[in-house]
């Protein structure tokens, strides 16, 4: 392996290690720690990105052989890596976000000087990037699980970075527990695969395919769905996500929402499409249903939030749902023997994966900049920030348009692809199951419209109108490196939105790897200006064309202005206040008020509760003091997890009788265990 591609890759791995060490070396010197750890991470991410792009575009990814990273002494444990197309595609996501986030962190970490240890932050940041990179490279189940665990632990350390607050510690522990339930399932899954293949290498799993028994295969499917599903944050395994993402430092939240939960998607894609062969129908149905439910519930809960970062975290659940809709549809098409359509659906899912990574990271960075300057995550205390933080506001707006799936940005393109694959799915089967496709499509439409409502709220309440608190009134624009980090992601959003056909070339090797070579279609038309579906006359879209056409239409308002509006003046005046004496920020619409109609419409789900206490002197209409409290019930917390929690606690109280503290009793336990094991061995 001595092509430039692998040289760059090794260089980037080395640089991540150097960055991690540098952070620890300069523990007491925040400035140097910041500069070196995030500086090395920036260069490393750049090298990694180059390597992945070259591998995919140059076509070497498909033929890359498995290589030993470090020699191993222990049997079965092999530290092998292989940069195949799927891994390289996810590598692009890591490197892209790694680059933008490292640059952003250079400025963001300054907020921790003198308060927290920046060296630790930088060091774990590098370790997380390194381990995530290795997760996408690992070619052996053992090595995969090791890097997976390093990733989970470093993420835990980063989530608990501001551990002085109780909320953070609780969220960290919740993440830790959920993450390890997931890892437990993964270990079980890989052992099941090992049982059939006799080796831990991914190549041997790939060779398994359809040779496994159906029951065995279904067990593997379910175990991996849970294991990777926890990491991806599918409903109902999502509860750690809205707790852990908001409390982490914002650059880490962006990394977690952008990259970390995508490792779950990577794992699902790897196992379902690479290892398990032709899927039975119910797999696809299950994944599509989970995706649809996650998408709708994610966005509904997001709407109820007025904590800016929690809101974004819930949107991650929504978007994971949309990605899974693509993957689920692809599995269903594979079952019915439509590899071309499966390719389209898979591309829709994977394209949404990178899109979500980019715009969600962008939004988290914007939220971080806002948090940095207003010291609050509560949207009800923000407002008017567009005047004080114009660039951050602009970047956030681009992210908001993209995530709401509005043309001409990238979210629209990937959802368009998802719609198209769902639409064509209707014709692939004669059974009643095909109704699922249009119904999921309708739910996707609901999701998209609710997401738009949510981001009108998020952007409008945070950035527009009057400042609602002193903090917001005295906010200041973020540091230049923080803006640069957001700028990189904004440009990527626009690029992925306007030039999808260019980017799709990176995805073709992935579908070729997973679904067999040469599906014989090309989604690009008219020299890449137009994106088309696989069906003849199926449908076309051109976001670039829309923008160009809009520019061509721009003279119409201009001419009307010149023709009619010559000499008109613009006067700045107060907003209409119904004859009162000026509007105060208290009179503005609040985030809670904005989402109230939706809360009322879906009250069966939210079970809203509110308490109003009035203090008054003579008439209730002239209250001297009003206290208002509103709650929304999180069904999964109260209906599933809390009873489960109680059950576990009760069981462990029973178990405590066993642990009496007497050594004789323990000796008996050991003896009995030995006997049982011996009997078992007979």
């Amino acid at each position, binding site marked *: 392996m001595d092509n430039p591609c692998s040289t760059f890759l090794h260089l980037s791995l080395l640089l991540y290690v150097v960055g991690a060490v540098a952070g620890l070396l300069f523990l007491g010197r925040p400035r140097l720690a910041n500069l070196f750890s995030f500086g090395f991470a920036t260069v490393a991410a750049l090298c990694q990105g180059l390597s992945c792009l070259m591998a995919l575009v140059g076509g070497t990814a498909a033929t890359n052989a498995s290589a030993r990273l470090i020699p191993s002494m222990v049997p079965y444990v092999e530290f092998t890596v292989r940069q195949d197309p799927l891994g390289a595609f996810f590598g692009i996501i890591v490197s892209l976000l790694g680059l933008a986030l490292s640059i952003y962190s250079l400025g963001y970490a300054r907020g921790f000087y003198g308060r927290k240890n920046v060296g630790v932050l930088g060091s774990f940041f590098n370790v997380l990037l390194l381990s995530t990179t290795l997760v996408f490279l690992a070619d052996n189940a053992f090595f995969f699980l090791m890097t997976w665990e390093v990733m989970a632990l470093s993420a835990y350390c980063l989530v608990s970075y501001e551990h002085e607050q109780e909320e953070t510690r609780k969220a960290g522990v919740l993440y830790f527990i959920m993450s390890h339930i997931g890892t437990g399932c993964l270990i079980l899954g890989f052992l099941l695969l090992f049982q059939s293949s006799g080796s831990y290498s991914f190549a041997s799993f790939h060779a398994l395919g359809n040779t496994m028994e159906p029951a065995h295969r279904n067990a593997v499917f379910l175990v991996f769905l849970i294991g990777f599903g926890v990491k991806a944050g599918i409903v109902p395994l999502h509860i750690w996500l809205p707790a852990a993402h908001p409390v982490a430092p914002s650059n880490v939240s962006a990394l977690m929402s952008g990259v970390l939960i995508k490792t779950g998607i990577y794992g699902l894609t790897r196992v379902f499409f690479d290892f398990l062969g032709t899927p039975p129908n119910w797999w696809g149905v299950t994944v599509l249903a989970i995706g649809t439910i996650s998408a709708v519930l994610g966005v509904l809960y997001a709407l109820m939030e007025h904590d800016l970062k929690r809101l974004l975290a819930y949107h991650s659940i929504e978007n994971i749902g949309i990605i899974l809709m693509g993957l689920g549809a692809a599995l269903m098409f594979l079952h019915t023997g439509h590899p071309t359509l499966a390719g389209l659906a898979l591309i829709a899912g994977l394209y949404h994966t990178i899109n979500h990574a980019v715009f969600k990271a962008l939004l988290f960075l914007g939220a971080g900049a806002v948090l940095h300057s207003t010291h609050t995550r509560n949207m009800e205390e923000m407002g008017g920030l567009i005047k004080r933080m114009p660039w951050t506001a602009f970047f956030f707006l681009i992210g908001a348009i993209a995530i709401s799936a509005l043309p001409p940005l990238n979210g629209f393109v990937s959802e368009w692809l998802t719609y198209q694959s769902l639409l064509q799915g209707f014709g692939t089967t004669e059974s009643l199951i095909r109704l699922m496709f249009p119904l999921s499509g309708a739910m996707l439409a609901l999701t998209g419209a609710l997401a738009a409502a949510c981001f009108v709220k998020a952007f409008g309440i945070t950035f527009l*109108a009057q400042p609602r608190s002193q903090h917001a009134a005295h906010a200041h624009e973020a540091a230049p490196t923080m803006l640069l980090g957001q700028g990189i992601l904004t440009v990527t959003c626009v690029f992925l939105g306007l030039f999808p056909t260019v980017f799709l070339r990176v995805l073709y090797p992935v579908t070729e790897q997973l679904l067999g070579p040469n599906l014989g279609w090309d989604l690009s038309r008219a020299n890449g200006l137009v994106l088309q579906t696989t*069906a003849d006359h199926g449908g*076309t879209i051109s976001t670039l064309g829309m923008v160009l*056409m809009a520019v061509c239409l721009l003279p119409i308002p201009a001419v009307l202005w010149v023709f009619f509006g010559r000499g008109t003046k*613009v006067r700045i*005046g107060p907003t209409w206040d119904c004859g009162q004496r000026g509007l105060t920020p208290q009179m503005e619409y609040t985030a809670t008020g904005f989402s109230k109609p939706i809360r009322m419409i879906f009250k069966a789900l939210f079970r809203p509760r509110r308490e109003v206490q009035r203090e008054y002197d003579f008439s209730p209409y002239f209250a001297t003091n009003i206290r208002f409290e509103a709650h929304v019930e999180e069904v999964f917390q109260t209906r599933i997890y809390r009873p489960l929690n109680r059950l576990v606690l009760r069981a462990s109280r029973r178990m405590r009788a066993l642990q009496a503290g007497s050594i004789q009793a323990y000796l008996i336990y050991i003896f009995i265990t030995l006997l049982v094991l011996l009997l078992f061995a007979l």
Partner: protein
Amino acid sequence: MKPDPVAIAIQTALLLLIAPLISGCIKNWKAKLQTRRGPRIWQPYFDLAKFLRKDMVISEHASWIFSAAPYVIFLSSLLAGLMVPMVVAQAPLSLYGGVLGVIGLLALGRFFLALGGLDPASAFGGMGSSREMTIAAIAEPAMMLAIFTVAITAGSTDLSQIVHSSGGPLWKLLDPTHVMAFAALFIVLLAESCRIPVDNPATHLELTMIHEAMLLEYSGRYLAFMEWGAAIKQVVLLTLLANVFFPIGIAQDTSFPMLAVGSAAYLLKLLALAAAVVLVETTNAKLRLFRVPDLLSASFVLATLALMSTFLFH
């Protein structure tokens, strides 16, 4: 098919000119039905010209979003209109986006409309934005399902293809799939173009208005572009209904007799649908906000039934 500059220019002009006329007709006929004289059908043109000539007052709290919104709304409605076949079966911009593109562009306009409502820090605007986004959110699944039903039958999301395939013998118009999908989309049209059971375009009472609440702070040129944009959006939706469900008389090519018949048929269909809107508006009372979801769920159920019926009849 490549976008043809002549076709684009003609359709743009048609959209710009016909949109105020339809609004005017609806207003006038509604007044006639209520035995009032009402404004002339040409009144919206005079209104637009007047707005364009007026000075503007802009709120001190407003940002550039407030100024960008009218242009985004105006241009996105126009672009969406260029993707819908009007007189000729081939829409000039169908290559750049089919029905999903139209929905996306209208949603983009709505997004900026709602932001423009929030920007001047007025409670009215916020209320309008909140309601608009809510109603749009519950209208969207019904709309998408109805469109999916049509698109599945046609095998395409390209509106020109859909129009081609829904042509044919007249009895096809009585196909239950067709009828139910039409009913579902008609309800969505009422919601999307702020018509009476959902919103009241004539009201300025803070408890009832939705669309008007967001426009409250707008004046002069900006108001003109927003009103015009809204009128174009209404025409786009009416055209969608007219040509997808009743493609009778639509011109298949650009020969003169075809065009003449096509224009006449198009105008007639549009006016007929406008008359239907007028009838609904005069015979119904505005629904309470929390009754609107019932109406839109009815539309969703209709769309689902339309989809199911494809099993039975195809």
